C-alpha cells in the first residue's frame, strides 16, 4: 500500500516526484474539482483552478507544516485560486436579488404563506430532483452572494475566515449570507407545500 499523502507531503522532495504528484491528484483531485465547480459554476474554469492549485501546492510544499491535513491545506489553496479567478472575471451581475427577498406590507408586517413540511428531510435527500433543484438554485444566485453562501454553508468557513478570503469585513459577509439564504429559501419554496392558517 502506498504511503498516504498526509505523511509524504511534509517531505520537501515531494514536489520533485511526479509519482507523488499523480497520487495526490488521484487521492484528492475529484474532491478539489468538486469544490472549484461549486465556487466557479463553470467546468472549464474549475479545471483551470484545480490545475493551478496543484501546481501552486507543489511549488509551496516546503511551507506545508502538517498542522492541518494535506487535504485541508490543498482545499484552502483551491478556494483561494478560485477566488482569484473570480476577481479576474469581473463579471457583471445582472440578476438582482430583490424579487427573492422577504416581502413586507406598508406597516412593516411580513407577507408570508404558511408552509407545511410533509416530507422529512432525510426522505427529500433521497430524491434526485431535490438535489438538482438545490444545486441549480445555488448556482443561479448572483455571484457575490453565491460565493459567500458556498464558503459559509458548504465549505464550512466561519464569518471571519470568509471575510479574509474575500478581502472584506464581517458585516458584509453577514449581510450577504443572510440575503443569499433568504433568496435560496424563496427558490426552494416549490419543494414544500402551502398550508392554511
Amino acid at each position, binding site marked *: 500500500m502506498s504511503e498516504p499523502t498526509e505523511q509524504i507531503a511534509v517531505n520537501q522532495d515531494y514536489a520533485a516526484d*511526479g509519482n507523488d*504528484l*499523480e497520487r495526490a*491528484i*488521484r487521492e484528492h*483531485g*475529484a*474532491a478539489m*474539482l*468538486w469544490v472549484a465547480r*461549486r465556487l466557479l459554476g463553470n467546468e472549464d474554469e474549475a*479545471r483551470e483552478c*484545480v*490545475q493551478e492549485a*496543484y*501546481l501552486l501546492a*507543489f*511549488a509551496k510544499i516546503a511551507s506545508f507544516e502538517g498542522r492541518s491535513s494535506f487535504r485541508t491545506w490543498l482545499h484552502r489553496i483551491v478556494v483561494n485560486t478560485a477566488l482569484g479567478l473570480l476577481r479576474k472575471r469581473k463579471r457583471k451581475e445582472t440578476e438582482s436579488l430583490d424579487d427573492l427577498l*422577504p416581502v*413586507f*406590507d406598508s*406597516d*412593516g*408586517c*411580513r*407577507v*408570508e*404563506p*404558511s*408552509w407545511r*413540511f410533509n416530507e422529512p*428531510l432525510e426522505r*427529500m*435527500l433521497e430524491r434526485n430532483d*431535490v*438535489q438538482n433543484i*438545490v*444545486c441549480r*438554485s*445555488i448556482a443561479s444566485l448572483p455571484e457575490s452572494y453565491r460565493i459567500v*453562501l458556498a464558503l459559509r*454553508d*458548504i465549505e464550512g468557513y466561519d*464569518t471571519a475566515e470568509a471575510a479574509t478570503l474575500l478581502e472584506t469585513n464581517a458585516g458584509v459577509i*453577514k449581510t450577504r*449570507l*443572510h440575503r443569499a*439564504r*433568504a433568496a*435560496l*429559501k424563496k427558490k*426552494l*419554496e416549490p*419543494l*414544500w407545500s402551502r398550508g*392554511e*392558517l
Partner: protein
Amino acid sequence: MKTGHTTMRKLRSAVMKLPLMLTCREFEDFVLDYFEGTLPTKQHVIFDIHLMVCHDCRSYLAAYQRSVALSKAVFERLEDPVPGDVPEDLVEAIIAAKDERYRRT
C-alpha cells in the same frame, strides 16, 4: 381568506407598536444572529416575543431554516463519497504543466 389574513396583519401591526415589540421588518435584521447564536440576551427575548405572536415570521423562519439544512445536507451527501474519479485528462494536464514549469526553471 385574503380578508382574514389582512385583518390579522392589521391586528399584528397594532400589537407590534407596543413596547418591546419589533415589526417583522426589524425582526428580519436579527435572523442571522439568531441562527448564529450571537444575539445578545435582550434582543433574544425581544426576538422570541415577536416569534410567539407572529405566525408569518414563524413560517418564514421554519422555511429559512429548512432550506439552509437542506442545502448543507445535499452537498454533504454529494461529497460522501466524492462523486466519481478525477478526469484522466485533468491528471495528465496537471502533470504536463508541472513538467513544463520544471523545464522552464
